[in-house]
């Protein structure tokens, strides 16, 4: 059975609405509080996360995951002195 986009929206609309509301309330809470999170790297990441949601790219969940991830360095083994094939260093 193939589910249509409309059927998914029917099922998830209220939940999605509620989640957007939660985000809005959290941002209001941050704004009401003393001080600011401007310049905090986590705040920047959250802003970029929202941009991913509004963008047109595919695989948004993967993109959000990568946004919140440390980057991979293919030369890590050399840097750690754990060269290939040698496991008892």
């Amino acid at each position, binding site marked *: *059975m193939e*589910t249509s986009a409309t059927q998914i929206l029917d*099922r998830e609309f209220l939940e999605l609405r509620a989640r957007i509301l939660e985000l809005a309330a959290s941002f209001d809470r941050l704004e009401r509080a003393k001080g600011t999170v401007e310049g905090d790297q986590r705040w920047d990441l959250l802003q970029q996360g929202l941009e991913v949601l509004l963008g047109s790219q595919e*695989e948004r*969940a*993967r993109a959000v*995951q*990568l946004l*919140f*991830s*440390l*980057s*991979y*360095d*293919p030369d*890590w*083994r050399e840097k*750690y*002195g*754990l060269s*290939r*094939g040698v*496991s*008892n*260093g």
Partner: protein
Amino acid sequence: MYYFDPHIHMVSRTTDDYATLARMGCVAVSEPAFWAGFDRGSVDSFRDYFHQLTDFERRRAAQFGIQHFTWLCINAKEAENVELSREVIAMIPEFLDEPGVLGIGEIGLNKNTRNEAQIFLEHLDLAIQFDQPILIHTPHLEDKYLGTRMILDMLTSDHRIDTDRVLVDHVEEHTVGDVLKDGFWAGMTLYPVTKCTPQRAADIIEVYGPERLLVNSAGDWGPSKPTAVPDFIFEMRQRGHAESVIRRVVYENPIEFFSQSSNFDYRAPDEEAVVTI
């Protein structure tokens, strides 16, 4: 529907949890060795833990008709103590012939340090030397992507590794593709905040298909939900997926993967009937 929880830390759970799991259709669990919440002080502490996993826990589960299997290792969080890690790795073979021991796990990385990678490689040597399947923990949150790539590098550059006998656990949207592409099995952990939700796990099944994918609760002493696999089953049903697809993920896939262990003596509940009417 009968199901397996292929990754759950029952030593941290109550007997009531066993009763609940049994009522929800859980017929078997596999319990990887992990971190106790504090660093253990000696190799004897691990010896006692492995005894608990291979003896007491198996008997406690059996009281509820749940078959208990286990995996042995020293967790990545304790790998910074290289000397102790090596003592534990040298002691593990004492337990490899115990009933229910499926292999080496959950080995892996936590903060992706040099010592963690070193001890990971030494666990691989142990598994290969004793012809054991491997269950792998991938790191949390921002460390997951890097750690998973590092783990895949170490596995794929070792020609002795048989990808069919390795399960890479706690995959999410940004790591599942690489794990499956390299020919490994992949596990999705259903955690309230830090890993997958039942909904996102169902999404991943819809994108990648049910082959080589498992779901687990990784229930332990922290925030986790031991009945998360039934939540996944419910989500899949609500979306209209065939029972055969669901059963494949929660029952047949674990059996297929675990059957590669010589100590996997699972018997389906209906084979065990002792009363006929």
